[in-house]
């Protein structure tokens, strides 16, 4: 195997959980969070402002997708899906999941501000737990199974 010392150092840093997360991973993580939060918000806005009861008919849901807010939400969630897929190639699943959980906090805040939803003290405490969890996971290496891109 070539690059012995570099590979050994990489493995050591990954196993010790102290390797720094690179800038591209940080930026993509932020992008994933923003598209997810805005997508969920648009979807929720569209769902709450549709009049008819949807029942369980798939056709009703497909029709609903073509209403403006739900369409915007769907477009944002497609972008979120593709960017998150890319992120999962750059970082561990067990890293991506907790770190992107900041989106849950943002959704709770948007629900409170824009929809007037009641956010109880339990929900704020839960939000605080999520933030602490994100900080913990954010201190670990992003990728512990690193592989080079295949061309």
């Amino acid at each position, binding site marked *: 195997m070539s690059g012995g010392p570099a590979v050994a150092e990489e493995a050591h840093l990954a196993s010790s959980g102290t390797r720094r997360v690179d800038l591209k991973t940080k930026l993509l993580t932020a992008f994933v969070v923003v598209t997810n939060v805005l997508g*969920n918000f648009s*979807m929720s806005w569209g769902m709450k402002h549709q009049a008819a009861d949807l029942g369980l008919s798939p056709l009703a849901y497909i029709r609903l997708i073509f209403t403006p807010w739900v369409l915007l939400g769907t477009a944002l969630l497609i972008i979120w899906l593709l960017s998150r897929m890319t992120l999962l*190639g750059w970082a561990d699943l067990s890293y991506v999941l*907790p770190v992107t959980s900041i989106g849950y906090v943002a*959704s709770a805040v948007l629900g409170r501000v824009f929809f007037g939803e009641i956010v109880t003290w339990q929900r704020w405490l839960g939000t605080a737990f999520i933030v602490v*969890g994100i900080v913990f996971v954010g201190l670990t290496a992003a990728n512990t199974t690193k592989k080079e891109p295949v*061309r």
Partner: protein
Amino acid sequence: MKWLMVGIIVGSTVLADLLQSFEMKRHTVAVEDLRPGRVAGMLAGLARRVPLVVAVFFMAISFFAFMKLLSVADLSFAVPVTAASVALETVLARLILKENVTALRWAGALCVACGVALLAM
């Protein structure tokens, strides 16, 4: 109905994420592939990978179940409660994907799971 939708969302999300993580680690996307001129080719390449297609199918199930959940529950309930998958997926990432889940990462995942439980109350 509410909890049935939560179950469907969590189950299909777990399967979709494991498949995506497994496949995207086998052939990662390089930063250069995200440039406007190359995105179409990159997307076409992704669409030819069977595990990703199956993952998207499970995500579609999760998506429609999520739409139903939003119509019967608050956004501030619907989004956080589906994070129940975090704890389950962290365990499966260790067991199936062989990721190095350190003590700090376990603690973080546990905090997130506790947070989700509180949000769901």
